[in-house]
């Protein structure tokens, strides 16, 4: 069968600009014209619509499942259950524990139980109601702390309810100090709330396989999991990335992949699935809520002596990324500070709450909120300025982190805090104020009376790329040929463009390395090697490195060709302006002439340097490749009577190693900061007894343009000698440090403890 209409486009482009410049996105024009093919836009003649029946209960035994009535509906072409899963009915990113379709047990509200395909989405929706499922409803397990320690609870999985426990011990875990502060902090369940729904189109193929066009963050990991469930060899399950409307971690786990393929293979017709917003809230994993017990000890001068912490991460029904959250959470638990002694413990558990997995800032968001709250508490106890306390304890190049790893690359933490502290503050409000600038805005709830202002800081450290011993790599294929008399490079990787601008970056690298202007980006698919995930702030580093390596191999092939033609090797050859230039500046060949009809194509991988697992007892080990750092300063106005908060200004300083595309870097920092603001004051999936109370954009609030304040962004470039071009992952740190900066500013304004985010009006007014 043919490819769908509106399929992913090759991104041609004539916009010049290499590394360090800010050329425009090659997909920008398509996007503003409404012509860019997102996964929910895919369409195929003869296609059917898939739909999913989900469990209404967080914990139940399925005692009867009867699909015959649904199947008898006119316009319904297939109704499938766990019995129809052709291969192994289990998948998972780290642990294989998630059924594609529930068997005898459902473990969370919204777990897929059956799927069907019909002529029209409305027929599909109606037919779902005809599927009979009888449940024996069970008591849900909802308290993560109990799930970690109480062996008398029912076991949700054969191995029990603990996904991972990690301890980290550094120095003297029982150290004592002059000044001690402690607190218990909680963080609610945040959602990625990407705008483009989970969607895709599965097209059955002649060879008995299937072609799946979809929005995802990692094509190959989807391919592996889907093929296993379909019982097909990898090469018969081919995936192509279509337009992705944001991801933020929420597309790391499977959603409609296996289901749409099962339906397509069963019906022999293309099947499109596209979740609506309600279903999207059930169809992807969320950020882990956490409860964290922290104690900090310091000298009278404000030097940290020890940190002790226990943290509980609620993983929900299936493991997803919980093991990584525990790893990141514990290894990043003391923040970007020098701490000689520490005793940290983290638990990730199974419950019957919604499954939690990857979200921007994975595992670092939770402890950063806690330790940055503690840093302010400590500053108050010491009578020190909060920024000053952070600067005094800031780690730097050569520091040893809590896992014993020595930081052998720049870590300008103190400078980031200084820089953000030194940015100009907004003017103090005087006289009559525009109510639209006040908390409550146009709803006219105050004219300034009862409004107090506060300033707060948040600083973070985030690991970049996959950790703890994973061989985390990417692959790129680069072809150079002459089209229309001009040398053109084509870059092909499986790396997912999810909005971050990777396609622009691939062009910039190819232009720089190959010294030419015209570069196209091939749609990402599984016909080229694995690129790993568009997550963990790793794609610029890893896929950027792979594109660089492939380009350099292409350049070497070109030099070899030139040597052959010229009968001599060219000393110190480089490529510039479509020509081969010798070290002395002499132009020795024109690329277009040299290549003629020949195309040069090379495929290369990039592997980052090795990391190592943590010692299970002490948590020591060189677990991380690289760290990113950012600092925020927030200024807030709070209406004490109504508990309303207006973030007046949010500024950020971040070290990016090398700003490959400075405008895009700033845009990542702005966007990430908005998500951190959301977590601070509004975003939470409310779960009661395992059930989600607010699965809609009416009730799950994300920041609007009225909620986001003006931002100043100060970008530092301290190259990491181990990274391609010196880059440092950018995407995650700003999300992480924005939240505590805002929480600390609200505390500074109100004098309240506020040990939980998001901070709601009632937390401020005490009602």
């Amino acid at each position: 069968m043919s490819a769908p209409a509106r399929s992913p486009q090759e991104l041609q482009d004539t916009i010049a600009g290499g590394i360090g410049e800010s050329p425009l996105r090659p997909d920008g024009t398509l996007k503003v014209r409404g012509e860019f093919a997102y996964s929910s836009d895919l369409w195929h003649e003869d296609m059917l619509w898939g739909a999913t029946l989900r469990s209404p209960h967080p914990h139940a035994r399925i005692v009867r499942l009867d699909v015959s009535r649904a199947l008898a509906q006119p316009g319904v072409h297939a109704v499938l259950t766990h019995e129809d899963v052709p291969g192994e009915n289990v998948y998972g990113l780290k642990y294989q524990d998630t059924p594609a379709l529930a068997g005898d047990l459902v473990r969370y509200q919204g777990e897929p139980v059956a799927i069907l395909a019909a002529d029209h989405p409305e027929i599909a929706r109606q037919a779902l109601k005809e599927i009979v499922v009888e449940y024996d409803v069970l008591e849900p397990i909802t308290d993560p702390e109990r799930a970690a320690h109480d062996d008398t609870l029912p076991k949700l999985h054969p191995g029990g309810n603990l996904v991972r426990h990690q301890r980290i011990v550094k120095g003297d875990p029982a150290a004592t100090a002059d000044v001690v502060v402690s607190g218990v902090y909680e963080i609610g369940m945040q959602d990625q709330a990407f705008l483009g729904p989970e969607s895709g189109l599965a097209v059955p193929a002649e060879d008995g396989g299937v072609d799946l066009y979809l929005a995802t963050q990692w094509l190959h990991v989807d391919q592996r999991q889907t093929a296993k469930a379909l019982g097909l060899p990898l090469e018969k399950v081919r995936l192509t990335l279509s337009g992705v409307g944001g991801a933020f971690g929420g597309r790391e786990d499977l959603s409609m992949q296996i289901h749409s393929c099962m339906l397509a293979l069963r019906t022999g017709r293309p099947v499109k699935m596209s979740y609506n917003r309600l279903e999207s809230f059930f169809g992807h994993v969320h950020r882990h809520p956490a409860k964290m017990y922290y104690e900090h000890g310091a000298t009278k001068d404000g030097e940290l002596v020890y940190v002790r912490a226990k943290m509980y991460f609620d993983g929900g029904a299936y493991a997803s990324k919980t093991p990584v959250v525990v790893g990141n959470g514990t290894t990043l638990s003391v923040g970007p500070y020098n701490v000689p002694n520490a005793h940290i413990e983290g638990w990730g558990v199974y419950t019957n709450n919604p499954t939690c997995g990857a979200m921007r800032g994975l595992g670092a968001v939770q402890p950063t909120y806690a330790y940055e709250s503690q840093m302010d508490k400590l500053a108050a106890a010491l009578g020190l300025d909060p920024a000053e306390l952070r600067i005094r304890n800031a780690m730097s190049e050569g520091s040893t982190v809590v896992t014993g790893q020595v930081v052998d690359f720049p870590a300008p933490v103190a400078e980031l805090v200084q820089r953000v502290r030194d940015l100009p503050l907004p003017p103090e409000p005087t006289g009559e104020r525009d109510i639209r600038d006040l908390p409550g805005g146009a709803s006219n709830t105050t004219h300034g009376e009862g409004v107090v202002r506060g300033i707060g800081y948040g600083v973070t450290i985030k690991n970049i790329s996959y950790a703890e011993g994973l061989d985390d790599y990417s692959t790129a294929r680069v072809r150079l040929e002459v089209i229309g008399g001009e040398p053109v490079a084509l870059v092909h990787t499986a790396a997912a463009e999810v909005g971050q601008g990777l396609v622009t970056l691939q062009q910039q690298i190819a232009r720089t390395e190959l010294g030419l202007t015209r570069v196209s980006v091939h749609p990402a698919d599984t016909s080229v090697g694995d690129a790993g995930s568009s997550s963990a702030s790793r794609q610029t580093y890893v896929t950027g490195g792979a594109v660089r390596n492939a380009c350099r191999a292409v350049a070497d092939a070109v030099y070899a060709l030139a040597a052959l033609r010229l009968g001599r090797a060219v000393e110190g050859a480089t490529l510039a302006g479509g020509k081969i230039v010798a070290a002395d500046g002499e132009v020795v060949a024109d690329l277009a002439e040299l290549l003629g009809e020949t195309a040069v194509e090379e495929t290369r991988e990039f592997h980052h340097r090795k990391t190592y697992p943590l010692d299970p007892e002490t948590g020591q080990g060189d677990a991380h490749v690289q760290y990113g750092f950012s600092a925020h300063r927030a200024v807030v106005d709070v209406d004490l009577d109504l508990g309303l908060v207006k973030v007046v200004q949010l500024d950020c300083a971040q070290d990016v190693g090398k700003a490959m595309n400075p405008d895009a870097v700033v845009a990542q920092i702005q966007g990430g900061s908005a998500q951190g603001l959301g977590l601070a004051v509004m975003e939470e999936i409310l779960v009661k007894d395992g059930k989600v109370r607010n699965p809609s954009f009416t009730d799950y609030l994300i920041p609007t343009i009225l909620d986001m304040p003006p931002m100043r962004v100060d970008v530092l470039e301290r190259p990491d000698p181990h990274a391609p071009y010196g880059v440092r992952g950018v995407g995650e740190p700003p999300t992480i440090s924005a939240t505590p900066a805002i929480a600390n500013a609200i505390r500074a304004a109100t004098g309240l403890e506020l040990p939980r985010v998001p901070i709601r009006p009632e937390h401020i007014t005490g009602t």
Partner: protein
Amino acid sequence: MRVNVTVNGEPRRADNVWEGESLLYVLRERLGLPGSKNACEQGECGSCTVYVDGVPAGACLVAAGQAEGRDVVTVEGLAEGDALDPVQESFVEQGAVQCGFCTPGLLVAAHDLIERVPEPSDVEIREALAGNLCRCTGYEKILDAVRDAAAKKALR
């Protein structure tokens, strides 16, 4: 039922439309115009914003039948041939597009704002776009784009 509607200046007809279908569904799935986006289909995000008889509306909340005989302009209708509208140009140039899923709705809303208020202040821009969610950009570059588009339009 059958729905007749003028879309981007062309009379169009959709047959066999179900009672419950929205204008958004008709545009995207029946008329082959997927530019207007389906982010929430609940009237909350603004991604599906189109002009209906010259007034911006959420196409997901307009029943297909209600569109009968109306004049609809979608994001696909903002450009004139190859020439982008200034708001489209500015969104690209100012980096206001990341994943771009919010973009079509924002473009229609911003286009309408500049038509009504040729020199909008920041507060006016923020108020006019408050019904359009964007998850990627943090809005700062969207503000830049709208300011820039207003300036461009003033020059034309």
